[in-house]
Protein backbone atom coordinates (compact mmCIF):
# COMPACT_ATOMS: atom_id res chain seq x y z
CA UNK A 1 0.00 0.00 0.00
CA UNK A 2 2.71 2.50 0.95
CA UNK A 3 4.42 1.25 -2.19
CA UNK A 4 1.43 2.36 -4.18
CA UNK A 5 1.33 5.80 -2.55
CA UNK A 6 4.99 6.37 -3.39
CA UNK A 7 4.28 5.82 -7.14
CA UNK A 8 7.78 4.52 -7.79
CA UNK A 9 9.30 7.77 -6.58
CA UNK A 10 6.99 10.00 -8.66
CA UNK A 11 4.43 10.54 -5.88
CA UNK A 12 4.70 14.35 -5.88
CA UNK A 13 4.13 14.55 -9.65
CA UNK A 14 1.35 11.96 -9.93
CA UNK A 15 -0.66 13.11 -6.89
CA UNK A 16 -0.35 16.80 -7.68
CA UNK A 17 -1.63 16.13 -11.22
CA UNK A 18 -4.66 14.22 -9.96
CA UNK A 19 -5.15 16.86 -7.26
CA UNK A 20 -5.29 19.68 -9.81
CA UNK A 21 -7.67 17.57 -11.91
CA UNK A 22 -9.97 17.03 -8.92
CA UNK A 23 -10.05 20.76 -8.16
CA UNK A 24 -10.75 21.74 -11.80
CA UNK A 25 -13.47 19.09 -12.25
CA UNK A 26 -15.22 19.85 -8.94
CA UNK A 27 -15.15 23.58 -9.68
CA UNK A 28 -16.70 22.86 -13.08
CA UNK A 29 -19.48 20.85 -11.46
CA UNK A 30 -20.26 23.19 -8.57
CA UNK A 31 -19.99 26.67 -10.10
CA UNK A 32 -22.85 26.48 -12.67
CA UNK A 33 -25.26 25.26 -9.98
CA UNK A 34 -24.18 28.11 -7.66
CA UNK A 35 -24.94 30.55 -10.48
CA UNK A 36 -28.30 28.90 -11.19
CA UNK A 37 -29.28 29.20 -7.53
CA UNK A 38 -28.15 32.84 -7.29
CA UNK A 39 -30.09 33.70 -10.43
CA UNK A 40 -33.23 32.03 -9.11
CA UNK A 41 -32.97 33.94 -5.83
CA UNK A 42 -32.41 37.25 -7.60
CA UNK A 43 -35.31 36.79 -10.03
CA UNK A 44 -37.64 35.75 -7.20
CA UNK A 45 -36.79 38.90 -5.25
CA UNK A 46 -37.42 41.07 -8.31
CA UNK A 47 -40.71 39.29 -8.86
CA UNK A 48 -41.83 40.05 -5.30
CA UNK A 49 -40.94 43.72 -5.59
CA UNK A 50 -43.12 44.17 -8.64
Amino acid at each position, binding site marked *: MSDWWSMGGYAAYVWSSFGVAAV*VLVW*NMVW*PYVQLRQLRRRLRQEEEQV
Partner: protein
Amino acid sequence: MLMRWFHQLGSPPYFQMLARRLSPWLAVPAVLLTAWGFYAGLVHAPPDYQQGDAFRIIYVHVPAAWLSLFVYTAMAVAAVIALVWRMKVAEAFVIAAAPIGASFTFLALVTGSIWGKPMWGTWWVWDARLTSELILLFLYLGVMALENAIEEPRSAARAASLLAIVGVVNVPIIHYSVEWWNTLHQGPTVTRFDAPAIEWSMLLPLLVSALGFTLLFAWLVLVRMRVILLRREAGSRWVREWLQNP
Protein backbone atom coordinates in the same frame (compact mmCIF):
# COMPACT_ATOMS: atom_id res chain seq x y z
CA MET B 1 -38.58 16.41 -39.38
CA LEU B 2 -34.96 17.36 -38.74
CA MET B 3 -35.71 21.00 -39.52
CA ARG B 4 -38.62 21.00 -37.08
CA TRP B 5 -36.41 19.61 -34.36
CA PHE B 6 -33.78 22.24 -35.16
CA HIS B 7 -36.42 24.96 -34.77
CA GLN B 8 -37.73 23.53 -31.52
CA LEU B 9 -34.21 23.25 -30.14
CA GLY B 10 -33.72 26.91 -30.99
CA SER B 11 -36.54 27.90 -28.67
CA PRO B 12 -35.23 28.63 -25.14
CA PRO B 13 -38.22 27.13 -23.21
CA TYR B 14 -38.02 23.89 -25.19
CA PHE B 15 -34.26 23.81 -24.70
CA GLN B 16 -34.63 24.38 -20.96
CA MET B 17 -37.04 21.46 -20.66
CA LEU B 18 -34.79 19.17 -22.69
CA ALA B 19 -31.63 20.19 -20.81
CA ARG B 20 -33.28 19.56 -17.43
CA ARG B 21 -34.44 16.13 -18.50
CA LEU B 22 -31.04 15.17 -19.91
CA SER B 23 -28.94 16.39 -16.96
CA PRO B 24 -29.12 13.33 -14.67
CA TRP B 25 -28.57 10.95 -17.61
CA LEU B 26 -25.34 12.76 -18.41
CA ALA B 27 -24.18 13.62 -14.89
CA VAL B 28 -24.30 10.12 -13.37
CA PRO B 29 -22.33 8.29 -16.11
CA ALA B 30 -19.95 11.27 -16.39
CA VAL B 31 -18.95 11.06 -12.73
CA LEU B 32 -18.86 7.25 -12.62
CA LEU B 33 -16.78 6.86 -15.80
CA THR B 34 -14.29 9.58 -14.87
CA ALA B 35 -13.89 8.13 -11.37
CA TRP B 36 -13.42 4.59 -12.70
CA GLY B 37 -10.96 5.77 -15.36
CA PHE B 38 -8.83 7.56 -12.75
CA TYR B 39 -9.05 4.63 -10.35
CA ALA B 40 -8.11 2.00 -12.96
CA GLY B 41 -5.34 4.25 -14.27
CA LEU B 42 -3.87 4.64 -10.81
CA VAL B 43 -4.40 1.08 -9.56
CA HIS B 44 -4.79 -1.46 -12.36
CA ALA B 45 -2.69 -0.17 -15.25
CA PRO B 46 0.87 -1.57 -15.15
CA PRO B 47 3.76 0.92 -14.80
CA ASP B 48 5.29 2.02 -18.09
CA TYR B 49 8.58 0.31 -18.95
CA GLN B 50 10.29 3.64 -19.65
CA GLN B 51 8.42 6.17 -17.55
CA GLY B 52 7.55 4.06 -14.50
CA ASP B 53 4.56 5.36 -12.56
CA ALA B 54 4.93 8.93 -13.82
CA PHE B 55 3.10 7.91 -17.00
CA ARG B 56 -0.15 7.70 -14.95
CA ILE B 57 -0.42 11.47 -15.37
CA ILE B 58 -1.68 10.75 -18.91
CA TYR B 59 -5.04 9.64 -17.45
CA VAL B 60 -5.64 13.30 -16.66
CA HIS B 61 -3.49 14.96 -19.28
CA VAL B 62 -4.69 13.20 -22.44
CA PRO B 63 -8.48 13.43 -21.82
CA ALA B 64 -8.06 17.11 -20.85
CA ALA B 65 -6.03 17.82 -24.00
CA TRP B 66 -8.46 15.93 -26.28
CA LEU B 67 -11.39 17.77 -24.78
CA SER B 68 -9.62 21.13 -25.11
CA LEU B 69 -9.64 20.58 -28.89
CA PHE B 70 -13.08 18.97 -29.09
CA VAL B 71 -14.73 21.75 -27.07
CA TYR B 72 -13.10 24.44 -29.18
CA THR B 73 -14.24 22.78 -32.41
CA ALA B 74 -17.80 22.41 -31.09
CA MET B 75 -17.72 26.04 -29.96
CA ALA B 76 -16.64 27.20 -33.44
CA VAL B 77 -19.43 25.15 -35.10
CA ALA B 78 -21.97 26.70 -32.72
CA ALA B 79 -20.47 30.11 -33.48
CA VAL B 80 -21.16 29.63 -37.20
CA ILE B 81 -24.77 28.65 -36.41
CA ALA B 82 -25.07 31.65 -34.09
CA LEU B 83 -23.85 34.07 -36.75
CA VAL B 84 -25.71 32.60 -39.72
CA TRP B 85 -29.08 31.76 -38.15
CA ARG B 86 -28.94 34.13 -35.14
CA MET B 87 -29.93 31.26 -32.90
CA LYS B 88 -30.00 32.26 -29.21
CA VAL B 89 -29.32 28.72 -28.08
CA ALA B 90 -26.20 28.54 -30.27
CA GLU B 91 -25.01 31.89 -28.88
CA ALA B 92 -25.49 30.49 -25.38
CA PHE B 93 -23.44 27.42 -26.31
CA VAL B 94 -20.49 29.54 -27.44
CA ILE B 95 -20.48 31.51 -24.19
CA ALA B 96 -21.11 28.46 -22.01
CA ALA B 97 -18.43 26.29 -23.63
CA ALA B 98 -15.57 28.81 -23.37
CA PRO B 99 -14.91 28.62 -19.59
CA ILE B 100 -15.19 24.81 -19.59
CA GLY B 101 -12.80 24.56 -22.54
CA ALA B 102 -10.43 27.00 -20.86
CA SER B 103 -10.41 24.88 -17.70
CA PHE B 104 -9.60 21.70 -19.68
CA THR B 105 -6.82 23.52 -21.56
CA PHE B 106 -5.43 24.79 -18.26
CA LEU B 107 -5.55 21.25 -16.86
CA ALA B 108 -3.74 19.85 -19.92
CA LEU B 109 -1.01 22.48 -19.68
CA VAL B 110 -0.49 22.11 -15.92
CA THR B 111 -0.41 18.30 -15.91
CA GLY B 112 1.85 18.31 -18.99
CA SER B 113 4.19 20.61 -17.15
CA ILE B 114 4.15 18.42 -14.03
CA TRP B 115 4.94 15.39 -16.21
CA GLY B 116 7.65 17.28 -18.11
CA LYS B 117 9.71 18.05 -15.03
CA PRO B 118 10.73 14.44 -14.19
CA MET B 119 10.60 13.18 -17.81
CA TRP B 120 12.17 15.99 -19.85
CA GLY B 121 13.93 17.74 -16.95
CA THR B 122 12.03 20.98 -17.50
CA TRP B 123 8.60 22.41 -16.67
CA TRP B 124 8.26 24.14 -20.01
CA VAL B 125 9.79 24.36 -23.49
CA TRP B 126 8.66 26.58 -26.37
CA ASP B 127 7.91 23.53 -28.45
CA ALA B 128 5.25 23.73 -31.20
CA ARG B 129 2.73 21.53 -29.35
CA LEU B 130 3.08 23.35 -26.04
CA THR B 131 3.06 26.81 -27.59
CA SER B 132 -0.02 26.16 -29.77
CA GLU B 133 -1.88 24.70 -26.77
CA LEU B 134 -1.01 27.84 -24.77
CA ILE B 135 -2.42 29.93 -27.63
CA LEU B 136 -5.60 27.84 -27.36
CA LEU B 137 -5.90 28.89 -23.71
CA PHE B 138 -5.54 32.55 -24.74
CA LEU B 139 -8.21 32.08 -27.43
CA TYR B 140 -10.66 30.71 -24.85
CA LEU B 141 -9.84 33.57 -22.47
CA GLY B 142 -10.21 36.02 -25.37
CA VAL B 143 -13.69 34.71 -26.19
CA MET B 144 -14.67 35.07 -22.51
CA ALA B 145 -13.16 38.57 -22.19
CA LEU B 146 -14.78 39.82 -25.38
CA GLU B 147 -18.18 38.56 -24.28
CA ASN B 148 -17.71 40.27 -20.91
CA ALA B 149 -16.54 43.55 -22.37
CA ILE B 150 -19.63 44.22 -24.50
CA GLU B 151 -22.71 45.41 -22.67
CA GLU B 152 -25.48 44.36 -25.07
CA PRO B 153 -25.74 40.55 -24.77
CA ARG B 154 -26.48 39.73 -28.41
CA SER B 155 -23.67 41.84 -29.88
CA ALA B 156 -21.39 40.40 -27.19
CA ALA B 157 -22.28 36.88 -28.29
CA ARG B 158 -21.74 37.76 -31.94
CA ALA B 159 -18.31 39.28 -31.31
CA ALA B 160 -17.31 36.26 -29.21
CA SER B 161 -18.54 33.93 -31.97
CA LEU B 162 -16.47 35.72 -34.58
CA LEU B 163 -13.30 35.33 -32.50
CA ALA B 164 -14.15 31.67 -31.87
CA ILE B 165 -14.39 31.06 -35.64
CA VAL B 166 -11.15 32.87 -36.45
CA GLY B 167 -9.30 30.96 -33.74
CA VAL B 168 -10.32 27.54 -35.04
CA VAL B 169 -7.28 27.53 -37.40
CA ASN B 170 -5.25 26.78 -34.29
CA VAL B 171 -6.99 23.41 -33.77
CA PRO B 172 -5.38 21.53 -36.71
CA ILE B 173 -2.09 23.26 -35.91
CA ILE B 174 -2.17 21.76 -32.40
CA HIS B 175 -3.20 18.35 -33.70
CA TYR B 176 -0.52 18.11 -36.41
CA SER B 177 2.18 20.08 -34.56
CA VAL B 178 3.94 16.87 -33.50
CA GLU B 179 4.20 15.79 -37.14
CA TRP B 180 4.91 19.12 -38.85
CA TRP B 181 7.62 20.22 -36.46
CA ASN B 182 10.33 18.37 -34.65
CA THR B 183 8.80 18.66 -31.22
CA LEU B 184 9.96 17.49 -27.83
CA HIS B 185 6.35 16.46 -27.22
CA GLN B 186 5.88 12.85 -28.32
CA GLY B 187 3.83 11.87 -31.37
CA PRO B 188 0.38 10.27 -31.28
CA THR B 189 0.11 6.93 -29.50
CA VAL B 190 -3.61 6.19 -29.62
CA THR B 191 -4.91 7.77 -32.83
CA ARG B 192 -2.61 6.10 -35.33
CA PHE B 193 -3.81 4.43 -38.49
CA ASP B 194 -2.40 1.06 -37.46
CA ALA B 195 -3.00 -0.45 -34.03
CA PRO B 196 -2.41 1.87 -31.07
CA ALA B 197 1.10 1.58 -29.63
CA ILE B 198 -0.21 1.01 -26.14
CA GLU B 199 -1.17 -2.01 -24.05
CA TRP B 200 -4.93 -2.64 -23.70
CA SER B 201 -4.84 -2.53 -19.87
CA MET B 202 -3.26 0.92 -20.14
CA LEU B 203 -5.54 2.11 -22.93
CA LEU B 204 -8.93 1.16 -21.49
CA PRO B 205 -8.79 3.49 -18.43
CA LEU B 206 -7.67 6.27 -20.76
CA LEU B 207 -10.62 5.81 -23.12
CA VAL B 208 -13.05 5.53 -20.21
CA SER B 209 -11.86 8.72 -18.54
CA ALA B 210 -11.94 10.50 -21.92
CA LEU B 211 -15.56 9.40 -22.33
CA GLY B 212 -16.23 10.57 -18.77
CA PHE B 213 -14.75 14.00 -19.55
CA THR B 214 -16.87 14.24 -22.71
CA LEU B 215 -20.09 13.50 -20.82
CA LEU B 216 -19.01 15.91 -18.09
CA PHE B 217 -18.69 18.62 -20.72
CA ALA B 218 -22.09 17.77 -22.24
CA TRP B 219 -23.77 17.93 -18.83
CA LEU B 220 -22.10 21.13 -17.64
CA VAL B 221 -22.44 23.05 -20.87
CA LEU B 222 -26.21 22.45 -20.71
CA VAL B 223 -26.38 23.77 -17.14
CA ARG B 224 -24.36 26.86 -18.06
CA MET B 225 -26.53 27.44 -21.14
CA ARG B 226 -29.65 27.31 -18.96
CA VAL B 227 -28.19 30.00 -16.69
CA ILE B 228 -27.36 32.22 -19.69
CA LEU B 229 -30.79 31.81 -21.31
CA LEU B 230 -32.73 32.27 -18.06
CA ARG B 231 -30.78 35.44 -17.31
CA ARG B 232 -31.35 36.77 -20.80
CA GLU B 233 -35.03 35.96 -20.98
CA ALA B 234 -35.81 37.10 -17.42
CA GLY B 235 -39.37 38.44 -17.27
CA SER B 236 -40.71 36.21 -20.05
CA ARG B 237 -43.48 33.75 -19.31
CA TRP B 238 -41.41 30.56 -19.39
CA VAL B 239 -38.86 32.00 -16.94
CA ARG B 240 -41.67 33.03 -14.56
CA GLU B 241 -43.14 29.55 -14.77
CA TRP B 242 -39.74 28.10 -13.90
CA LEU B 243 -39.47 30.43 -10.88
CA GLN B 244 -42.80 29.25 -9.51
CA ASN B 245 -42.12 25.65 -10.21
CA PRO B 246 -38.40 24.85 -10.24
